[in-house]
């Protein structure tokens, strides 16, 4: 008789074998001592290309931190002004030769991983590539004030600037990772965007590239001859997942050792409850807001019928309970920003003047401007037009979608109807660029300094770039100009404060959140230091004490 039983029994057998096989067959290796250790980072997303000037994705940057060195890097303080807080890397020292000339002396021990020395001509080549329009690097604009980079001799690279300003040194070192000229010279510049080198990189950093399995994982191994000291952790593995919940589940299930941004209180609580994990909060680089298009939807020459009115924008801002929203979405791990400011920036100051949460005043302002609910449908109207608009939100961001829906309900309470357009990123980007939207939910991941982001997003100079809201206030622009060119931090601080408070008063946006990032790493890892602008920058100094090694650390390869 044909029966289903044999199949079921066989299936059960196979399953049992699988479960047993997966545990019984793990053979522990024999690595012992200070230089063992395997760390698995679960990350959301996957690198695009590991060729620094062409890279766009955050994951790629984290991996490039291990592969390619900068001349010098920002310190734990993330101070971008002057050069005193910067740490030497490829350059062992530097000096100023006049106000516009900066001379770097390379560390003679520095080697590419194929044995070639790192030379000043590599540095000159790197600058040439980063600023070549054919490479179309996203960092090109940041280097516009560097006039030239030349090699004085194999150990000495000379930077010449077009003008003197407080963040010259930051611009010289922060954006560029030095590239191996001898390996890249043969690749035509217009093919760098998809160069095979970017999937099989060779650098001068503490780790060497081993393998990259598309959609799965990427492995690096420590370079035991690294000139700044052998990294203590031998293997680094990046494990790719499509979303943060799965990444957290992997972490909690001990199938990964760490994750850099848990984002929601839900994930943080789960990681905190896992016995093998330690939580590391650090200052976040992101701020988010709901922005109002000051120009008419689809027509940048006309003011927006609702948001063109400063008082209406102020009223809407006052109608939103930002503290409760924050608590609901982020729990204790984020702050209401005092304007368009991320916690990473030194200008962060909770004392900056902002609009209060005051629904009474919000309602009163709306009524006094003629927005009343004359037809008793719950929605305010004026001259037969309801107080209704569409909010553009990216469908891939859970945080922004959640905020949108919470705000939708809060605005409904004061008689404002907000429809949510949840669309793909590609549609968001297109409609933003074309000005085809009423309001938008946005978040920026910022550089360590406000002086690049703020002008691009909020001044008139940002029209056609990232100032999608077309916010335009000459007084604000003047203050930003003053702040970015101020010689001292004290002067800059005053100017920045004035500028931010001007934006707050004009209310082109409701500033909703500035993230605290929360990372979780396995508790066996010691000396975990996280630099807020780039969590992976200091991984080469982390270690696993020999007495805390676990099976996966001892694996031989």
């Amino acid at each position: 008789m044909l029966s289903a039983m044999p199949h079921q029994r066989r299936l059960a057998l196979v399953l049992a074998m699988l479960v047993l096989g997966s545990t019984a067959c793990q053979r522990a290796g024999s690595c012992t001592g200070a230089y063992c250790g395997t760390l698995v980072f679960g990350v959301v997303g996957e690198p695009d290309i590991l060729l620094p000037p062409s890279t766009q994705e955050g994951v790629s940057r984290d991996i490039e931190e291990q592969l390619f060195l900068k001349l010098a890097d920002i310190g734990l303080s993330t101070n971008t002004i002057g050069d005193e807080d910067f740490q030497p890397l490829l350059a062992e020292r530097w000096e100023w030769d006049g106000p516009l000339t900066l001379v770097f002396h390379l560390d003679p021990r520095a080697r590419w991983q194929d044995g070639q020395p790192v030379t000043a001509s590599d540095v000159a080549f790197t600058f040439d590539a980063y600023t070549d329009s054919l490479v179309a690097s996203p960092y090109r604009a940041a280097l516009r004030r560097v006039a030239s980079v030349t090699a004085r001799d194999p150990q000495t690279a000379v930077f010449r600037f077009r003008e003197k300003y407080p963040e010259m040194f930051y611009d010289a070192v922060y954006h560029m990772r030095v590239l191996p000229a001898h390996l890249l010279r043969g690749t035509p510049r217009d093919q760098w965007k998809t160069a095979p080198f970017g999937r099989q990189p060779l650098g001068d950093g503490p780790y060497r590239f081993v393998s990259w399995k598309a959609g799965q994982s990427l492995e690096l191994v420590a370079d035991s001859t690294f000139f700044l000291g052998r990294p203590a952790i031998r293997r680094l593995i990046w494990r790719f997942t499509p979303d943060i919940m799965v990444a957290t589940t992997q972490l909690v299930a001990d199938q990964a050792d760490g994750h850099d941004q848990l984002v929601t209180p839900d994930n943080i609580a789960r990681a905190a409850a896992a016995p093998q994990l330690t939580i590391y909060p650090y200052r976040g680089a992101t701020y988010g807001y709901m922005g109002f298009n000051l120009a008419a939807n689809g027509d940048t020459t006309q003011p927006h019928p609702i948001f063109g009115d400063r008082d209406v924008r102020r009223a809407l801002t006052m109608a939103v309970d930002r503290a409760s929203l924050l608590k609901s979405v982020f729990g204790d791990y984020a702050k209401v920003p005092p304007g368009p400011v991320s916690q990473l920036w030194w200008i962060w100051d909770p004392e900056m003047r902002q609009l209060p949460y005051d629904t009474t005043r919000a309602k009163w302002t709306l009524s006094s401007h003629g927005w009343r609910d004359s037809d008793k449908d719950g929605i305010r109207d004026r001259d037969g037009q309801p107080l209704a608009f569409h909010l553009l939100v990216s469908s891939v961001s859970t945080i922004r979608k959640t905020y949108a829906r919470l705000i939708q309900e809060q605005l409904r309470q004061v008689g404002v109807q907000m429809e949510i357009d949840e669309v793909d990123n590609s549609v968001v980007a297109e409609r933003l660029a074309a000005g085809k939207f009423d309001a938008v939910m946005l978040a920026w991941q910022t550089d360590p300094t406000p002086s690049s982001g703020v002008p691009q997003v909020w001044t008139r100079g940002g029209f056609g770039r990232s100032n999608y809201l077309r916010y335009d206030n000459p007084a604000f622009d003047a203050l930003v100009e003053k702040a970015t060119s101020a010689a001292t931090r004290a002067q800059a601080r005053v100017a920045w404060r004035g500028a931010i408070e001007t934006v707050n008063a004009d209310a082109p946006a409701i500033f909703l959140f500035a993230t605290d990032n929360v990372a979780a790493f396995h508790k066996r890892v010691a000396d975990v230091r996280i630099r807020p602008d780039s969590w992976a920058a200091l991984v080469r100094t982390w270690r696993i004490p020999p007495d805390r090694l676990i099976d996966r650390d001892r694996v031989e390869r």
Partner: protein
Amino acid sequence: MTLPAWFALLVAFALATWVVRDVRRRTARHEAGRRFFRHPTAAWGIGVLAFFVVVAVAAPLVTSYDPRAQLDIVHLKNQAPSWSNILGTDVYSRDLWSRVAFGARVSLIVGALGMLVAVTVGTLVGAVAGYYRHWVDAVLMRGVDVGLALPRIFVLLIAIALFGQLPLTALVLAIGLTSWFGTSRLVRAEVLSVRERDFVAAARAVGAGPGRVIFRHVLPNAAAPIIVSAALGIGNVLLLEAALSFLGIGVASPTPSWGNMIADGAPYLASAPWTTLFPGLAIALVVMALNAVGDALRDALDPRQEEREERGRTT
């Protein structure tokens, strides 16, 4: 949940039971009706469907909260089921039972209308192809092949990308217009066999036009498989809506649909599984009921038809 809501829910149960009894009584006179209820899960299926329809219609009565209302976004989000929120709350602190009940409206309407579009288009194309045969048939059926050759979820993703954000009607149309291929093949095959029978030939002989012949003579005789495939198809549309919403391109918030409820809940699967579990169960129950009723209908109306057309589900 307030007492009146509990009471209304009880009434809904009672109503569903009564509907089953009533349908059984009314159909008992016909052979087909008796065959229908001989199917073991038919009565159960009718009952479940009746219950959800009643709940959908009387949604404000059987629930105690506005499905859009965020009760307390700080303290009441992702609450486990309790006496005040019998199915718990979601991440926006909305009452899950209210959303399931109101979501029934949207989901059932999308399912029914989507299927209506699909069956109408599929029947017309199939009838025309089968009636005219030759090159009309060849062209139409190659078109159907193209439709079947494209993975439907890709087609819908691309089609929906065309709109950016979909209004409900567009969603129904998009689903309907990509779901008719199977029906059209079915109808074509049926028409091909019916058109050769005597009464059709007779109708043509007395000079009836093609429209009249198709609608008055051919289609009524091919009705059974169409009805059955429609009943089974609603379930597929429901599943499709859920899949689309899960990808973030279905029914737009804050309007609840079972699909977008699963999508809302999925990021919190580990900490608040009920937000994913209950809407999924609702879908499963209704689709099960539809399949049960479809099976029974087939037994009743068209005992010879095979289950082949059931395959080709997309989700």
